[in-house]
């Protein structure tokens, strides 16, 4: 475990930023989800040893944040949410300085800076003053200063803030590479579920300082027991034909929804429940169990001469999770 907290609490006067939070974070890319003010930034700051907790304890790499903050910071990189870069210095000079402040000797600092700026995608612009950079470039510099000393763990606070969709994609790919190709563990705070789903292996949800949920992303996503079929016209014809063949289906929005029979455990005893890999590479066991139904649907579509656009199991997304929560309680 990289991070452990026990009953971690932080008050700022009347405001409770963190309320009795006990969690564990392992390696990989972890998403920290919650609204502004939910406690994500406070948690990161406590783990960095920047802010002392009001009560409770926290450990990073087995080191206590209160007494060993300095040693923790040697191996951790931090990319804050807000603007924090000086305007009147070049990216190269700034990142070199930050590298030296993390203990790298002068020439190593220079080399690592050049490499890191290349990895984050800053090329000739690195010699210009940061004041003239676009938001996307500034975010890259922020990431570079967090990476330059080769940390074991990275804290990223809303890394795609202010980026347009293309820039957001680039940054997410970079984060994904950091986790996989660079082999650095990442804790990423975000309020956008799509990002968390695409990049993170596990998530931690904070609400008003409390820990609401934690777990692998795949345990919240995966495929559900509903088959979605989309035809480009006359869906009601297909529904009728399926009904004739004993298949109950209904029209939901653009698609036809066919409830599937509940999963039976496979012969080898491995439970194939509703959860599967997010990439859609379902277990073959599950595929085989569905195919008779799929065949019926395809045949019906072909008989009716309808254009078939989609036939796939409905995927549960993280937003579904919160939609259900929202319906349950305001």
């Amino acid at each position, binding site marked *: 475990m990289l991070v452990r907290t026990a009953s971690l609490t932080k008050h700022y006067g009347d405001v409770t930023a963190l309320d009795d939070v006990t969690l564990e974070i392992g390696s990989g890319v972890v998403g920290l989800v919650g609204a502004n003010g939910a406690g994500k930034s406070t948690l990161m700051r406590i783990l960095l040893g920047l802010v002392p907790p009001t009560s409770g304890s926290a450990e990073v790499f087995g080191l206590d944040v209160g007494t060993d903050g300095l040693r923790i*910071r040697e191996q951790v990189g931090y990319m804050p949410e*807000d*603007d924090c870069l*000086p305007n009147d210095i070049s990216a190269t000079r700034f990142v070199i300085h930050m590298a*030296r402040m*993390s203990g*790298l000797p002068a020439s190593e600092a220079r080399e690592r800076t050049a490499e890191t700026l290349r990895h984050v995608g800053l090329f000739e612009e690195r010699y210009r003053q940061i004041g003239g950079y676009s938001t996307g470039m500034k975010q890259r510099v922020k990431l570079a200063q967090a990476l330059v000393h080769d940390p074991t763990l990275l804290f990223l606070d809303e890394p795609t803030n202010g980026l347009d969709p293309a820039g957001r994609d680039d940054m997410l790919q970079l984060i994904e590479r950091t986790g996989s190709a660079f082999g650095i563990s990442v804790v990423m705070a975000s309020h956008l579920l799509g990002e968390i789903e695409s990049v993170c292996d596990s998530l931690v949800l904070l609400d008003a300082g409390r820990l609401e949920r934690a777990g692998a992303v795949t345990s919240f996503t995966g495929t559900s027991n509903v088959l979605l079929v989309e035809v480009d016209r006359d869906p009601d014809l297909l529904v009728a034909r399926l009904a004739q063949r004993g298949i109950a289906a209904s029209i939901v929005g653009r698609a036809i929804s066919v409830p599937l029979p509940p999963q039976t455990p496979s012969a080898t005893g491995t439970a194939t429940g509703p959860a599967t890999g997010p990439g859609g590479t379902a277990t073959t066991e599950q595929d085989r169990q569905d195919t008779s139904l799929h065949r019926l649907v395809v045949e019906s579509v072909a008989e009716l001469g309808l254009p078939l656009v989609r036939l796939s199991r409905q995927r549960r997304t993280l937003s579904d999770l919160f939609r259900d929560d929202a319906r349950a309680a305001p």
Partner: protein
Amino acid sequence: MTDPQAPRGTIYDLGYRHYEGPRLGRRYAVRSLVTLSLRSTFGLGRGALPKVLAFGLVLLAFVPAIAQVAIAAVGRGIFEVVEYADYFGLIQVIIVLFVAAMSSELVGNDRRYHTLVLYFSRPIRRDDYVLSKITALALALLCLTLGPQLLVYLGNWLGSSRGAGWIADHASELLAIVASSVLVSAQLAAIAVAIAMFSSRRAFALTSVLAVLLVTFIAAGTLVAVLDDPGWAAAVMLLTPLFVMRAVTLVLFDAVPAVSTFSHDQDPADQIAFAGLPGWAWVAALVAQTALAVAVAVLYYRRAS
């Protein structure tokens, strides 16, 4: 020897490499911060304007020293344009301008751009940041305090055409030069940073420092001139940084004037003499002011960000 006909070609791995080199720890980081702050004080790595300002002020600080040396070289005898003890008084405004401008830059920038958080996420202690800034400013100030006086000393030595013997005779002066420069630089650097850190707007920080240093000096001088009681005069002067600075310098050079009557002519040296305090009291006051400023700065940054 490779076969020239064999196909050649290699792709080198440009993927991310982990850093296996040395990590030098807190002392090195602090040294780097001091160095970078010092460099930025003199405008290195920034535009032309900061350089002009910094080096311009330094040059102005040297003017009396240069004049002294030039005259001595021409005049062929010890002709003192300026005494060591008076030097700071002479260039007081320049020193204050320098420390006001530089302090607002040193701590103002990081506040304005919110860069503090990036420093605090480094493996240094909270206090290291502000202590480094004060140290850097003090070191920069030495260029205006120690530098010119050493030049005067050098000029006097060369003018004496005596060699090593002269140095032995004037060793105490050298000691006083170094001591006064170091104390004064530390005092003004600490006070300036402790004032400038409250504002992220450069102009505001600069004028605040100027106000606290110069205005208090002028006000105190005027006040002391109308006070008849040495005790009150001493109290007012002990609280005024520039008075304390002047006093310490006079004390270290053993140049406190002896006054039998107190003339209301507002000469700071006379006013200091009027207070009638023992030398160590002034030195203690300087140390106290410096320590207080440092404490305020440290406490402020402990709660920051």
